[in-house]
């Protein structure tokens, strides 16, 4: 009780009383708090002057801080500070740092890039980042692909060709795989014969009698397989028709199938149902010509370039 009395003598009250004697103490804020508050007010005033802040008319006050950059039209522009102008400045700086390399990339022929150790280092690091961002979701981080979805880029078996020019073409314009569903024009027996013949080409366990009949069918105009896969069944790269003789499988998951009958069944499925997949997006609109050239060399060097 005595303590309360003491406080009432030293601390001011707000000066008014309710119900006769109900009073409110007026403890002032600590000085450090008050001065910090004043400092934030000053900070805000400075900030408003430098950076875009208050709305004004149909726009806003831009602030005194400025950014100078060069745009894609080659014009040098000065703009009041904002994140989009800052990005332009960042990109300018990055482009300047990378320019010597990218200039070299655009000027050098593919073969020379591959031989130049310094450029090779650049391709490996720049290509790795580009590949991880754009290609790895389908072709996987190491380029090994996914059976029955996306081709392996590390072997020397190519659907559309493994030269620098064809890889570049594939990257620029994309690809679209297609094979008609032969189950709609052939009967089950014929499809089975073809599957056995295709299995025989890769030395997979098969029914020799059926394979012989499949051989005839393959080269006949009834099934006309040879149109795209050629008479030797080695495929036509201009149509993306795969080589059927190398025991490398993309669409039919032969490696995972067990036993000769299972492997033949996997092939039969593709022949009967056809393919309307194997879509590779076009990258010409998304990546720059230099980036595509880097990726061309990178993919070529994954192991299977021709």
């Amino acid at each position, binding site marked *: 009780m005595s303590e309360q009395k003491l406080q009432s003598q030293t601390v001011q009250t*707000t*000066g*008014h009383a309710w119900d006769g004697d109900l009073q409110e103490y007026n403890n002032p804020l600590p000085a450090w708090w008050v001065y910090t508050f004043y400092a934030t007010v000053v900070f805000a005033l400075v900030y408003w002057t430098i950076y*875009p802040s208050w*709305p004004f*008319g*149909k*726009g*806003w006050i831009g602030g005194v801080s400025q950014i100078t*950059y060069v*745009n*894609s*039209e080659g014009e040098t*522009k000065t*703009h009041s500070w*904002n*994140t*989009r*102008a*800052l*990005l*332009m400045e*960042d*990109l300018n700086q*990055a482009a300047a740092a990378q320019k010597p390399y990218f200039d070299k990339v655009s000027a050098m022929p593919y073969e020379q890039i591959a031989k130049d150790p310094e450029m090779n280092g650049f391709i490996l690091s720049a290509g790795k980042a580009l590949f991880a*961002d*754009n290609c790895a*979701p*389908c072709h*996987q*981080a190491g380029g090994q692909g*996914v059976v029955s*979805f*996306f081709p392996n880029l590390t072997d020397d078996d190519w659907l559309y060709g493994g030269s620098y020019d064809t890889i570049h073409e594939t990257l620029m314009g994309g690809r679209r795989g297609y094979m008609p569903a032969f189950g709609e024009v052939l009967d089950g027996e014929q499809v089975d014969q073809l599957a056995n013949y295709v299995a025989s080409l890769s030395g997979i366990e098969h029914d020799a009698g059926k394979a012989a009949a499949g051989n005839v069918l393959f080269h006949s105009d009834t099934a006309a397989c040879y149109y795209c896969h050629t008479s030797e069944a080695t495929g036509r790269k201009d149509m993306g028709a795969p080589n059927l003789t190398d025991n490398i499988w993309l669409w039919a998951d032969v490696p995972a199938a067990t036993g000769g009958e299972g492997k033949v069944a996997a092939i039969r499925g593709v022949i009967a149902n056809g393919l*309307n*997949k*194997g*879509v*590779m*997006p076009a990258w010409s*609109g*998304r990546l720059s010509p230099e980036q595509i050239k880097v990726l061309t060399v990178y993919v070529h060097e994954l192991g299977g370039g021709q």
Partner: protein
Amino acid sequence: MNINFKHEWIETNIGLMAVLTMLAISVGGLVEIAPLFFIDKTIEKVEGVRPYTPLEQRGRDIFQREGCYTCHSQMIRPFRDEKLRYGHYSLAAESQYDHPFQWGSKRTGPDLARVGGKYSNEWHVQHMVAPRSMVPESVMPNYPWLLSTPLDISDTASRMKALRKVGVPYSLTQAEYDANVAKFGETVAPQLHIPDAQKNLVEQANFGNYDGDRSGISEMDALVAYLQVLGTMVDFSKYADDAFVDNR
């Protein structure tokens, strides 16, 4: 002191205190909201942005239903790293017909603002059914039922009517249709006509065959159609790379 006098005066007049409290609070609102009705620089003037077709819009509904936005943003910020990974920064104009927008701020998965055209339809389907079969390190859940669940198209028109109420220019009358032809062109306007919604949806799904299965229209068809249009409406090659600097 003068201040003490006012203090007491306000505290003992509850009506006055309510009025002054309202005034103090409304300052924040006035400063932040009122200028938006006058500023005309925030939405960039670009060609190509249109409301979603009925199929894309249904895909968007599924995107929201499945909570995709809890892990995927749709907002590429104007930073160098984001430009390199995702492409041109998002424009306000690009989400002008989104209700609600899907900008988001949390990325467990990658940003999807420009995912359209980056992967094949087949990749999307397989990735939705079993994400780890495509991206081994992925933590995305499997969404296999999208492929097996037929898309409910019976309420497509009603959903578009609801969006029309909040300002999306889907057309109901001939006059609105003509306005859309003038604004979006001959090919887009029919897609925005509510009376033809169901027909348009079926046609687009059958033609696009987004899920790779021709036997029917699944929820996957709609979702992939939506994902494939994200960020593709504006052709940035038509604009200088600093064309939108003045809008911030």
